[in-house]
Structure formats: structure tokens, C-alpha cells
């Protein structure tokens, strides 16, 4: 029930992001979600794509440093408190959210959030046990 995310190290330079998107476009890789974390000197681009293996290969061939990380996609009720209920479960179990961002596509009438936890397996277990829908890779890439 985990999802593979690819991440890329990038210096804060104009046009760098466009180089990444150009490579993916050329290889017909579709970006499904993306977030950019930045510092003064560098940034980390994180993406969910529809073909992780291909994206990983073409980006590495172009000289980028590519990391693969397991993240969790969680369905969040699109109403007040939807996100809070999920975070509350994690707090009880003392699981830390390293970072999170939103998925572009909804899953039915629910929003989808991408989470990176310090304890991925624990998070999946506890969320599933409490009836919180976790979206698997295959379904997510094709939402």
C-alpha cells in the first residue's frame, strides 16, 4: 500500500525545473503530483509519476541525482476536520510527518494527500486499522 516517489536534487537556478520537465515530456512520462522544497542554495523536487522506472532512468542518464522514496497516499474527506482526523491518529501513535503535499486528482469525492512518514509501515498499519483509505501505487498512478 506504499507509493514510490522520485526526488531530484536541484540547485536554485533559473530554468533548471524546465530541464526536468523537458526530459519527462520527451519520454512521455506523466507527472501526477509534485512538490518542491527549497533552501537558499538548493531544492529537492519530489514527484509522483506514472512510470517511475522510466523516469528514474532518463533523469539519471541526463546527469541528475535521483532518489526513490516510499510515501503513502491517503484519501482525505473533503470536509472540515478531514485532515485533522488523520493527523490525530498519527499523533496518538507518535508517528512523525516528514513532509506532505496534495495530489492533483481526487479519488472519487475525496482529496488525496501524499505523506512521508518516519515510520511508513507503522503509519499504513494504523491508518488502515482506523478505516482511513490508503491508495496503492497502481491505482494512484492511473487516477
Amino acid at each position, binding site marked *: 500500500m506504499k507509493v514510490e516517489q522520485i526526488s531530484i*536534487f536541484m540547485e536554485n537556478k533559473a530554468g533548471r525545473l524546465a530541464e526536468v520537465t523537458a526530459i519527462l515530456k520527451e519520454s512521455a512520462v506523466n507527472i501526477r503530483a509534485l512538490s518542491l522544497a527549497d533552501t537558499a542554495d*538548493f531544492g*529537492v523536487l519530489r514527484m509522483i509519476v506514472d512510470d517511475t522506472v522510466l523516469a528514474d532512468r532518463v533523469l539519471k542518464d541526463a*546527469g541528475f*541525482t*535521483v*532518489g526513490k522514496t516510499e510515501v503513502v497516499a491517503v484519501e482525505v474527506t473533503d470536509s472540515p476536520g478531514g485532515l485533522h482526523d488523520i493527523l490525530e491518529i498519527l499523533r496518538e501513535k507518535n508517528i512523525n510527518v*516528514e*513532509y506532505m503535499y496534495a495530489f492533483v486528482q481526487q479519488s472519487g469525492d475525496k482529496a488525496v494527500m501524499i505523506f512521508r512518514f518516519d515510520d511508513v509501515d507503522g503509519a499504513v498499519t494504523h491508518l488502515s486499522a482506523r478505516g482511513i483509505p490508503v491508495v496503492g501505487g497502481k491505482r494512484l498512478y492511473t487516477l
Partner: protein
Amino acid sequence: MIYDMEFETLPREALEAIQLKRLQATLQRSYATVPFYRERFREFGVTPSDIRSLDDMEKLPFLVKQDLRDNYPFGLFAVPKENVVRIHASSGTTGKPTVVGYTARDIETWANLMARALSAGGARRGDIIHNAYGYGLFTGGLGVHYGAERLGATVIPVSGGNTKRQITIMKDFGPSILTATPSYTLHLAEVAREMGVDFKELNFRHGIFGAEPWSEAMRRQIEGDLGLSAVDIYGLSEVMGPGVAVECHEAKAGLHIFEDHFIPEIIDPETGKRLPPGEVGELVFTSITKEAFPVIRYRTRDITRLIEEPCVCGRTLIRMERISGRTDDMLIIRGVNVFPSQIESVLMTISEVEPHYQLEVDREDSLDILTVKVEISQKLFTDEVRGLQNLERMIAKNIKEYLGISAKVRLVEPKSIARSEGKAVRVIDRRRI
């Protein structure tokens, strides 16, 4: 004022006679007590008794930094350990420092030579000397300190750093002589300005600045900003420390070498051949009075030329021009010697593969800023910003720990460091000295 009138104004013949006698004694002693010298001389088929004139020195083998490293820590000491009263060390090329030792008499000699140097720079008995060279393993602080006391001046052992407090001390104690690295001196001037203190209104008359290369332009800036007369001082711990050579404040045209203690030669760094007088080449020193750590034909890697013309100050000692460069890749950052290979060994401890790196040196607010750019690799990469920042911090911490200098560390993309002929350009020094 000339501190040691007799020895600093010797006629050439008398000086050379003294040099030869002292050289022969040094060679005999080193040969008898230091296995390294004995073996090296044998390899070259030379014995101390073959050296009958100063020109015969050419028959002697050179001593290089690597020899010091191979004999770490005390292998080149020429006296029993119980006769060594002081140890100093400077950074080496592999994280191992260069260790030097002094007998009580060496400390005595050093104090006398530093008294000469301070005196040449304009200091005299009764002056208050604000000594902002670092105290510790570095020879600068203590070297100046003992010379100042020998001269009969009042020394303030303030060392480096804590700049605001230094300005307060300058205001309250009224020191008349400043001793520091030239870049720290400019930093002092800036901090004083920020504190609303005008250096020109302080009591300073003279400054004796060294431990790093600086230029005529920088001298003009220091003299203009601080309202004092500035001279250059030269030394290196392998040879003794500060006080090997110094400019006189009368001429400020080249540094007088204390030739009754150190014999200078200029060689072609490629061939090792001695160059004719006045030619530019690598400076080589032989110590002829040191007991604990004599050096015979030590290659300094510093580039300069010797000036034989007489000087207006009356000293007959030969002069060397300011150091114009190095024959190796050593950088001097805030007075600390740094070799790219040292940074390399620090980086190696962090990842098993050697990362590509580049050193950038800038001067901001007259202080040297070292930036270490490290190319990120698959192995070092993590998708968490915090992890990457921790990596930057850890590298900086290790550099500080091993080399004693603060550096900014910047992670950069793979292949972003320019390579010429496949080799990365390791150093970009943007300081305009």
C-alpha cells in the same frame, strides 16, 4: 631603531664567515643525531666535512614537507626529548600537522630575533603592543609575545577573535603597536567603524603584519584606514616562526632576512638548481643556530627574489621581496595554511567515494571566506531537506575540527563543477590581494 646593531650591520665577509662556521656546526650535529639526515646525506654521497664553503651547500639534499610528514611527530629532532621545552605545530597536507620543537636556547634566539623584527617595524621599549596574532600551536601569538617582552615593551596578549572587546581594549589601554594578520587588521578597522571608534584617534603608530600574503595596495589601505605605518613580517614554523625576515619601517622595500641565523637560497623549483642573484624562484632556508629542529635546505614553496642592494636603514642583511605566490596549491585562509588535499581527506571520511569538490575563496569585509562546494552523489542524496542540510553542517563541522577554519559548505549538482581535461578545478581564489 636597529635592535642588534652589531649583527644586523655586519660587513658581508664577516657575516659569511659566521654563516659558514654555524652551518658546519649544524651539519655536523644533524648528521650525528638525526638518522634521517645521516641516511639522506649518504644517499647523496655527501658528508658534513665536504662543505667547506657556502657555495658547497649546493651539494646538500633538499628537505621537503613530505620528509617532515614521514618523520612525524619528533623524528627530525636533533636533541633528546628532555631538552625540548616547547612544541608548535602547523597544519600539514594530510590532516597530520607539521610538528616543530625548541630548546630553551632556541626560545631565547627566537625572542631576540622577534625583538629585532618588532624594532625594525618601529616598536621600542615602552611601547604597548596589542598582539592579535592567535596564541596556541600557531607560532604567531607566542612568537610575537616573547619578542615584545625581550624588547622591553608592554604586551597585551589579546590573541585573535572577540573583536569588539579588542576595540574597547585599544581605546582604554592606548596600545601604540598593532601586531596581527593584515586581513584581521582590516576587520578590526571595520568593527571599530561600526562601534563609532575612529582608528586614527587611537594611539597606534606602527603595525607589524604577516602570516599571510598581502600587497602594496593593502598596505596603503591599512595605513590610510588606521593611521599607522605598516610593515610586512615573514616566517614559517618549519624554519622558526615569525621573525625570519621583516621589512624596516624606513624603507618598506623588501624584508631583511636575519642571515646570521638562516641562510636563504633561491632555486628553480623545476630543476632544483640555484638561481643567480636577483632571479625569481623558490625560497629555500637552512637554519644555522637552531638546536631542537634544524632544517637543512628546506623548500618553503614560497616564490620570491632576493635584493642585494644596500638599504637606507643601515642593515646589511639581504632583503627578500614580498611573497608573490606558491609552487604548490596551498592556500592561506585567515592565516591558516589549507591544502585542497586536507579538505579531500575530510570529505573522504563522510563518503567512501571521493566526492567532487571545489574551494572558493573570497574576501568579504576584509575577512577570508572559504566556500566548499561539494557535488551531490546518489550515495549522499536524501530527499529530505533536513538531511541534506545536516550533511552540509557535518562537513563544515569536520573541516572546523580537522583544519581549525570555518567554511561554508554548499551542495551542488553532479557535474556542475567545471573540469578541465577531465580534472576538476579545485581552487578558485577570488581574493584580490
